[in-house]
């Protein structure tokens, strides 16, 4: 189910796509071409923070599958656990963009630098990339990083600078 401010969209029981615009001007059908105007209003700081936490949850789980508990139970990932469970304030950067992988690819990537605390998680979901990055607890993260926390600024991953 897609809930946008201009329309709802979902699959029916037989698998057909059903588009329900709030007003006729938001969608039009010309033969077999459907044109829909989708406007999002629900991507605020709260939504961004929870998306970043969800990606952190995905990242730690994938690390467990790839490397096991000897890696994931290191204290350098404690801030990830606390971010996921909201046990402590953890600055998180988050952004989105077009995926660099083909549109038929579902890819999850996790990267962590052993020389500093932090985790970068990218989810490439069939053409769209959502990513989130941590740099430890508030006292560990740099002022520049905290300034770009999801609560302060939305960082588009189309900007290469945002991954640094």
């Amino acid at each position: 189910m897609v809930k946008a401010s201009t329309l709802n969209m979902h699959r029916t029981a037989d698998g057909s796509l059903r588009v329900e615009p709030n007003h006729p001007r938001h969608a039009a059908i010309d033969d077999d071409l459907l044109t829909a105007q989708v406007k999002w209003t629900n991507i605020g700081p709260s939504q961004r923070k929870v998306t970043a936490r969800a990606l952190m949850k995905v990242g730690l789980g994938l690390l467990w599958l790839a490397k096991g508990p000897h890696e994931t139970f290191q204290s350098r990932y404690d801030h990830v656990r606390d971010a996921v469970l909201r046990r402590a304030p953890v600055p998180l950067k988050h952004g989105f963009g077009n995926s660099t992988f083909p549109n038929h690819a579902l890819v999850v990537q996790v990267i962590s630098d052993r020389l500093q605390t932090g985790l970068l998680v990218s989810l490439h979901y069939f053409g769209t990339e959502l990513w989130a990055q941590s740099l430890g607890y508030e006292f560990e993260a740099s002022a520049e990083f905290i300034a770009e926390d999801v609560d302060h600024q939305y960082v588009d991953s189309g900007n290469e600078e945002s991954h640094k």
Partner: protein
Amino acid sequence: MPVLDLSNDRFVVATAMAARQHVSPDVSSRPRSIYGPEHRQWAALPERRCLYCGTPDPEGSEEHVLGVSLGNWWWVIPPDVVCHECNHGPLGELDERLKAHPFIALTRTLTNIPGRKDSRRW
């Protein structure tokens, strides 16, 4: 749907990959969970704790790294690694919120990616 450990001395890197055909509504063509003997061994280590909250000797079911609702039936952490309270509490809630993300929801709907309920229905 491999999970690859691409780490070196400096960086810890893990990558997991799948393709569109792996999230087919057809249950018979869907790959199975990828965890194997080494994962079961990790899950049974002494002094084990919940991966997320740290509770000693956690008991719980399998944890899907990415929610089933996003089409993931194979990147699964074996039972008793994540406690029931985490798995069915905050982690389940985060899976739902990720599923409701506008771009994820739009992709799921347009490309007809079924979740658990949808698979039963079709």
